[in-house]
């Protein structure tokens, strides 16, 4: 909201010499934030109206002339005549022109200095409209020739009427009272400790020739409605003082009547509407009814929009049968009843409408008018009549006419009998909340200046009477805010709270664990990604649907079903591309890989830790205050593809493969602490594998029947579809599960005193037998003496039968009781061989 300084000064006697910057600073600290200061006369300092006394040819330059220009007494007590060299052709003796004197920095940025031009001294510059950044038909062509009536020596800003400073204020929604010049002046009066002056309207009334009656059918939502009839106004252009004010606050002048209603609204904050009274009259009577809108009621706005109203809109209707829809209350008038150049009689409206209903109407038709804005934030009920009278006074002043009596609805008087409410605040409360308090006398002065009633009770504190315009002040804390914002936050001492930690929360512990994991992942080359929570089906499918359909490997419907399962949908989405919330993190990382591949970055390593979102049914003991019927599950996903080492000039690069990924996942699991019964499972059915993963290179991580995540190659179709040239590998882990374990505790174990023995085996088995099968069988057959099993080679090929695989592994044996005897080792060795032979028909090399 724009506020003019010269306008403000009508209501408050600010201290002499206070600068616009100082005012802005004070207002900003006190909560009326000044976002910008527009000095209309910027750059026009030291520019004056000058009179050309003489003009002659420059002796050394054909295109220049020498002038003598008087700037009157602008620069001192004596008239000053300046010698100025000028290049423009359009000047002549006797003209009035703008003169930039030495020291001026004109709007185009030029600083005026004493100079010599071809040996002739120049003591200033005659300016063109362009140089002064003024729109004028002369434009580039020459010097700005002013009205001959302009008085020599007048500051040029004053000549232009641009001597105002305009503040652009950002008013918070609680401060409806500050949405006007008087409102802002009131805060300034308190901040600068000076007097506030509110004008009293003076009117000479006459018996209205037209009978006016007001009925509010909805006194709850329109408790008070004041009007005045004015006969015989002359609608026309506004006088310059009015136009200047209207334009200063960034609006366009319409006509004198409309401008006055705008003026009063920005003066006191009460929206005013004016009707062309003739459009409301029937049989020399005006009957106004305030009622609910009718469903579908037709309405043409002043701005020529055709609307169909509904019962939530409040309507100002006129006529015996309420047949004239004169206005959408509090938002906008109708085109039919608008004041025009032909209007001669008018009706002024000053009323209160329900904030919520005005807000709803204004939102519904997206008509965010200045009036609606003020009704939503509530107007001062005590200023209704004043605003009505003030409008009438000023309209008569600028447009003539005779004013009838003020008329209101029957309920208005009672409705406006405001119960003044009081708040008692003790000094102890003030000190408790702020840490310290100003002297009681200071409190009385500061709050009193704002228009509050203040009664000091000594030790007990104060009783404050809240003024009618401060509908945001209800409790002691509100008063304390008024005290501190006026006294100044800089009066408070910075104190650190007592350093205590109540209990370390579970999240604090988890946070620590997650940091370990995140550091590990970055050390392995993974960068932390952050993707939007929003997604859509197309993005989640990664373009797989067409490929899978073509290959017939998975039915399209299967994927769809999978995807539909428990997605959380947005009711008010950000457009079609953001209508679902993620329930899987990996597709987002694949999209990140695609973006980077498009920049030729093919070596990819990303991880992301974010919740996934799932719809769930109601729980038994749900508290409606906190129940959302959704579940958020913190997950970790990571994705890698490309070379294992980036900066390698030594020949062939290895590519990341499945076991790199699995290894990383195993290390991550290890970092979370001990978890029993966790295993990698290769699912039998392809449907159990996430749709975007390779069916033969994906393992599910399970604990019992509980799925905890997966690791594997991203489906080759995904890379193909998304122009990714390397094989991608991905892993996903349920962190709610991983974090549910107690923080890993390190505990020292003594080393074995006796040396271990290692034995290597090479066993050939059918391909269906996994390394895990062998490992588990050996574990259960060897038990106590087993220290470790390490697989160090896997072979498939010509040297062994088809459909077979050969595993080479090292078994480490040892005991805490003593060095193992050869016999013991041989027994174990034999047991391993015979068990694997029996169970898997294993063939051992060298046997």
């Amino acid at each position, binding site marked *: 909201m724009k506020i003019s300084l010269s306008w403000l000064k009508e209501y408050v006697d600010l201290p002499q010499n206070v600068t616009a910057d100082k005012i802005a600073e004070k207002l900003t*600290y006190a*909560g009326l*934030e000044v976002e910008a200061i527009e000095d209309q006369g910027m750059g026009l300092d030291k520019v004056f109206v000058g009179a050309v006394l003489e003009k002659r040819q420059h002796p050394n330059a054909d295109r220049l002339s020498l002038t003598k220009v008087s700037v009157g007494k602008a620069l001192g007590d004596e008239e000053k005549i300046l010698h100025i060299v000028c290049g423009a052709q359009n000047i002549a003796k006797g003209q009035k022109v703008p003169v930039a004197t030495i020291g001026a920095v004109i709007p185009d940025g030029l600083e005026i200095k004493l100079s010599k031009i071809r040996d002739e001294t120049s003591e200033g510059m005659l300016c063109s409209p362009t140089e002064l950044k003024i729109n004028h038909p002369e434009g580039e062509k020459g010097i700005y020739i002013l009205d001959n009536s302009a008085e020599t020596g007048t500051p040029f800003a004053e000549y232009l009427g641009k001597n105002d400073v305009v503040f652009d204020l950002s008013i918070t*929604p609680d401060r409806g009272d500050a949405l006007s010049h008087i409102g802002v002046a009131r805060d300034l009066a308190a901040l600068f400790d000076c007097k506030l002056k509110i004008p009293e309207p003076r009117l000479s009334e006459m018996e209205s020739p037209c009978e006016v009656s007001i009925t509010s059918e909805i006194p709850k939502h329109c408790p008070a409605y004041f009007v005045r009839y004015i006969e015989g106004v002359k609608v026309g252009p506004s006088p310059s003082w009015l136009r200047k004010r209207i334009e200063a606050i960034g609006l366009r002048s319409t006509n004198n009547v409309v401008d006055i209603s705008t003026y009063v609204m920005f003066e006191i904050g009460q929206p005013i509407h004016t009707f062309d009274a003739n459009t409301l009259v029937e049989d020399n009577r005006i009957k106004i009814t305030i009622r609910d809108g009718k469903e579908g009621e037709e309405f043409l706005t002043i701005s020529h929009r055709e609307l169909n109203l509904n019962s939530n809109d409040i309507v100002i209707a006129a006529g015996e049968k309420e047949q004239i829809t004169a206005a959408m209350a509090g938002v906008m008038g109708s085109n039919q009843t608008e004041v025009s150049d032909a209007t001669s009689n008018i009706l002024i409206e000053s009323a209160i409408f329900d904030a919520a209903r005005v807000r*709803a109407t204004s939102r519904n038709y997206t008509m965010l008018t200045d009036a609606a804005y003020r009704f*939503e*934030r509530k107007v001062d009920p005590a200023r209704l009549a004043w605003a009505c009278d003030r409008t009438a006074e000023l309209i008569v002043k600028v447009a003539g006419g005779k004013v009838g009596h003020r008329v209101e609805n029957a309920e208005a008087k009672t409705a406006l009998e405001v119960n003044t409410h009081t708040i008692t605040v003790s000094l102890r409360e003030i000190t408790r*909340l*702020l*840490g*310290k308090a100003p002297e009681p006398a200071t409190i009385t002065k500061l709050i009193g200046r704002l228009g509050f009633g203040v009664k000091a009770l000594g030790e007990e504190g104060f009783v404050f009477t809240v003024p009618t315009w401060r509908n945001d002040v209800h409790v002691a*804390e509100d008063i304390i805010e008024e005290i*501190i*914002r006026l006294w100044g*936050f*800089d009066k*408070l*001492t*910075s*104190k*650190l*709270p007592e*350093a205590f*930690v*109540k*209990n370390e*929360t579970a*999240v604090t512990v988890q*946070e620590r664990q997650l*940091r370990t994991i995140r550091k590990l992942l*970055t050390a*392995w*080359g993974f*960068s*932390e*990604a952050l*993707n*939007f*929570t*929003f997604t859509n089906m197309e993005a989640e499918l990664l373009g797989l649907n067409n490929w899978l359909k073509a290959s017939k490997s998975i039915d399209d419907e299967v994927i769809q079903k999978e995807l539909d399962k428990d997605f*959380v949908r947005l*009711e*008010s989405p*950000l457009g079609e591309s953001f209508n679902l*919330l993620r329930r899987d993190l990996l597709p987002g990382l694949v999209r*990140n890989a695609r*973006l980077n591949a498009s920049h030729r*970055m093919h070596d990819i390593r990303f991880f992301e830790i974010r919740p996934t*979102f799932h719809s769930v049914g109601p729980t038994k003991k749900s508290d*409606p*205050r*906190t*129940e*959302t*019927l*959704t579940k958020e599950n913190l997950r970790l996903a990571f994705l890698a593809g490309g070379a294992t*080492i*980036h*900066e390698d*000039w030594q020949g062939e690069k290895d590519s990341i493969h499945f076991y790199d990924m699995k290894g990383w996942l195993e290390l991550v699991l290890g970092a979370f602490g001990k978890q029993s019964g966790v295993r990698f499972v290769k699912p039998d059915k392809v449907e159990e594998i996430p749709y975007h993963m390779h069916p033969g290179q994906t393992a599910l991580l399970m604990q019992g029947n509980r799925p905890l995540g997966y690791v594997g190659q991203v489906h080759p179709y995904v890379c193909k579809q998304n122009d990714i040239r390397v094989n991608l590998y991905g892993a996903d882990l349920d962190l709610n599960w991983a974090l549910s374990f107690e923080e890993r505790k390190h505990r020292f174990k003594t080393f074995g005193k006796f040396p271990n023995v290692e034995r290597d085996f090479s066993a050939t088995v059918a391909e269906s037998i996994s390394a895990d099968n062998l490992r588990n069988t050996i574990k259960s057959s060897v038990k106590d003496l087993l220290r470790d099993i390490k697989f160090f080679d896997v072979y498939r090929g010509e040297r062994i039968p088809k459909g077979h695989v050969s595993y080479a592994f090292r078994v480490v044996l040892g005991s805490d009781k003593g060095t193992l005897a050869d016999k013991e080792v041989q027994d174990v060795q034999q047991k391993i061989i015979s068990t694997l032979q029996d169970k898997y028909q294993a063939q051992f090399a060298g046997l």
Partner: protein
Amino acid sequence: MSTVVDRLLDRLAELKTEANAKIQEITSEPQVQDLRTMYLGKKGKVSEVLKSLGDVDGKDRPKIGQEANELRDFLESELRSGQTRLETARIEAEIAKESIDITLSGMRAPLGALHPLMQVRDRMIDIFSGIGFSVVEGPEIETDFCNFEALNVPADHPARDMQDTLYVRENIVLRTQTSSVQIRTMLAEKPPIKVIAPGAVYRNDDVDATHSPMFHQVEGLYVDESVSLEELKGTLEYFAKEMFGPKTKIRLRNSYFPFTEPSVEVDCTCIFCKGRGCRICKQSGWIEILGAGMVHPSLFEKVGYPEGKYTGFAFGMGIERIAMLLYGVDDIRLFYENDIRFLEQFR
């Protein structure tokens, strides 16, 4: 008799000259061993001399023995230095051949970067946990009650204009502010409460250089029997100094949030111009970094705390905003594109 002694002594002197000359001329390591065998071995030339000791008169024997041992020691030491000389020469030669181009890059395994927003978040957690704040989290899908109603923002309140909300369905929203965690925390616990709540929040905003429908905040809440605005000021000043440097100052301006009273906006000295005034701070020397205030008593009422028993402060700040200031990032979209060229700058 003396002739035998003299002859042996002459022989030793002769051997010394002869052997020394050969040792000085050796060019390969095997020659060292050969010479050692030739002169000092059991059948070597020095031993040979000693074998003739039987012919020498008893009183002269020690003299010869001493001479012979001295010769042995001398030759052994010469052989050793000869050996060292050869070894050194060989290693020197090898070293000379081993010279490499050290300007080729090191064998770097890739190093990932933590996301800049998460780095800022981590830093904030560290700063506040250093003065006793614990971390709590709340859900991102939130009830109208926790996100609005309990925070004094009823359905038709103009304050809802400040935030355009994304709805999951009626009364269920994507939280527009981490302040919702204040309510959940107070519903679950009795004071003293001293927590921060970092997390993602959402607004129905179109994406542009300064707006994102998803962004991050850190909320702080401290409630006890007598918490004051001076402590809020002290806490935030500590934070600003830790985050932006020890010379940072803060200022409090009155503002409005429905759930705090008094409410303030907090500026810190511009981190670019150190308060002198620049383009970034619009010549004011100050940059707004967060909103804060004293917890509105109606929140205590909503969560069922006894009237008048507690006071508290709360604050909330945008992680993106602070990260953009700290790192000079001029487009918020960069944080969500996950372009490696962006992320790796924060390694």
